[in-house]
């Protein structure tokens, strides 16, 4: 097993150097960058990749997954022609709503100002739940795991009357496992994550 990292967010001119660049770049603009990085890994012979994103990085992972499922990005294959990405996970990521998600996107799709402007992951579009649709289309091909940190005010679902009203992925019968816990600090949750990674090693598949 190996590990590679991906840094993103530069825009070739409009990034403010003193700020963390990814805060200024919607994830939809970065999905293509991630595809390029995945291709580079494939060219070196990598296979069975598990994508793991934290916070906005998780939103980028899910945006990429949705774009692949929707056909806006190609499914990158390894040198043997097999799909390169076999699993994805998002940790503490604002992919279902957050404190600033004052408008129920199920009622007014795509109107969540937090997600559209700060994160850029438009989960609901044209009345569709893009994440649900992606999970259904890629079922059996890409395993999805979401880690929700109950203490993270940005990513965690809050009380219905304070935040959003949509159920979190997995809460509505979607075939996506949601684990409640903080991967970076909670040992049990962290072990769960590594088990998720290891179960996608070629010998275990």
């Amino acid at each position, binding site marked *: *097993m*190996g*590990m*590679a*990292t*991906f*840094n*993103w*967010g*530069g825009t*070739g*001119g409009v*990034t403010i*150097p*003193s*700020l*963390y*660049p*990814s805060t200024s770049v919607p994830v*939809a603009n970065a*999905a*293509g*960058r*991630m*595809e*390029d*990085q995945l*291709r*580079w890994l494939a*060219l*070196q*012979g*990598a*296979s*069975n*990749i*598990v*994508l*793991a994103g*934290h*916070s*906005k*990085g*998780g939103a*980028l*992972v899910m945006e990429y997954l949705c*774009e692949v499922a*929707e*056909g*806006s*990005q*190609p*499914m990158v*294959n390894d*040198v043997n*022609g097999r799909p390169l990405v076999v699993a994805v996970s998002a940790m503490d990521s604002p992919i279902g709503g957050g404190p600033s998600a004052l408008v129920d996107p199920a009622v007014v799709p795509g109107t969540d100002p937090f997600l559209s402007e700060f994160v850029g992951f438009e989960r609901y579009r044209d009345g569709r739940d893009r994440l649900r649709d992606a999970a259904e289309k890629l079922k059996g091909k890409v395993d999805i795991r979401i880690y929700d940190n109950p203490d993270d005010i940005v990513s965690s679902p809050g009380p219905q009357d304070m935040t959003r009203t949509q159920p979190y992925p997995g809460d509505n019968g979607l075939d996506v496992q949601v684990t409640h816990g903080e991967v*970076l600090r909670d040992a049990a949750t962290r072990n769960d994550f590594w088990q998720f*990674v*290891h179960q996608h090693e*070629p010998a275990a598949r």
Partner: protein
Amino acid sequence: MLRVVTFAALGAVLLVVLVVLGACSLGQSSSPAASARMTALAAARFALERDSTIRAKLPNGRVGSISANNPSVPAMDGTAPEWVLGVADPVSFVVYQYAVKDGRVGVVASGTVPLKDNLPLVADLVNGNNLADVMDSDRAIQVTEALGGAEYRKQTGAEILSMFLGGFAGQQLEWNVFYSKPLTDHQATLRIDARTGDRIKVDGDDFPKKTN
């Protein structure tokens, strides 16, 4: 082989990444002479011959890829508003993605890779600015169209959404041209030899059988 890729986070936990990204936004330059839309090799020549950004940072860099993808979709004439050069640093094993857009060259992303020595290169900067003897993006589209792409577009309503020039370690440079009609099952990627134009493979179940 299993790879885990982690992505940038908002939190203060990954301060190292923050520093790297901050640095990524600095190395940029511009030229009013560069046209807004270019072919892939024209963009590469601009970035390597007329602009100094890449060479200044990576004098021994290995240019292993050129790509255009969503939202900078290539047109049928092989031009795109933005091309991205993947340049590997053979010392740090980091690949920097340099966008070439509107006469500007700047880093837009970077990532680590287990860099192979036998990776086919578009250009090896330690040996100069010469580009590999491969067809440009305009010619690549002409070839994939003749290999069934045109018929596929006509049958399905698909469009070309991305192009990628690169090659697997130990193999040749190839063009990957991705045809798709989003929100349908009509997706196909044509892989051709970037030098000869010979078809390598078609990934796509509904691509015309005569070439699939």
